[in-house]
């Protein structure tokens, strides 16, 4: 399993609609993934990176602790998502996906370099960024 990260095609579409003032929702949710995970632009809500969305043990789809704009190159050019998962049981975690507020579009998928063997009460602290301004 190699580490990968990708924004998704459906996420680009959701962003376009959101900026155009059409039906779309902002970056909001996060979910843990398990199983073989390879981030791909073709990822969907049902199939994020070929992995399985977790529905137990503290890694379920929830609103992220914090979603805010921050500066990477120019003021507020980056969306930053911070979240802490706390395991409520033993669980292998291979990545995470960031979703919209409606929980129907994946904005980005990140797959870990190796599976994390979480035990009860372990924490997994995530910081994820999407930068819009590329280049200098």
């Amino acid at each position, binding site marked *: 399993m190699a*580490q990968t*990260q990708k*924004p998704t095609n459906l996420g680009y579409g959701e962003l376009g609609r959101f900026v155009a003032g059409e039906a779309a929702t902002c970056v909001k949710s996060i979910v843990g993934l398990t199983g073989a995970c390879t981030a791909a632009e073709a990822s969907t809500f049902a199939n994020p990176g070929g992995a399985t969305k977790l529905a137990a043990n503290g890694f379920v789809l929830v609103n992220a602790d914090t979603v805010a704009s921050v500066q990477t190159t120019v003021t507020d050019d980056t969306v930053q998502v911070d979240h802490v998962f706390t395991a409520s049981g033993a669980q292998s975690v291979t990545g995470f996906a960031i979703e919209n507020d409606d929980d129907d579009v994946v904005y980005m998928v990140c797959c870990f370099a190796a599976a994390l063997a979480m035990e009860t009460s372990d924490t997994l602290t995530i910081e994820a960024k999407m930068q819009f301004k590329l280049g200098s």
Partner: protein
Amino acid sequence: MESQSGLRITWGAEHSDKNGVLISRQIHLLPPEAPTCLRLNCLLWYLRGALLYALVANYEERRVAYAEENRHKKILDRYRTGEFFPKTIWQAIHANIKLTCPVCRKYNVDPLRG
């Protein structure tokens, strides 16, 4: 006139136990940018970047797996924190070889330097 497009994704993940003790930390690895010209030096620069990326990705995969497998054992902090990050192909080769050698990683010895 076209401009570069897309989003840059960066992330970090930190696995800790219930007492806050670090088990493993990961940061994103960005693959090399595609070559922007067909000149030999552009292609060689890209090949160098691709090789370094492959070696570092391999190292990170094995480092995190090693840290996770040894969560209850004492291992070198560098394998948990990822703070030693190979920046050159030579460093990446050394780091990979060292990680495969149980004695070297335990006693922090580089097998290529004795």
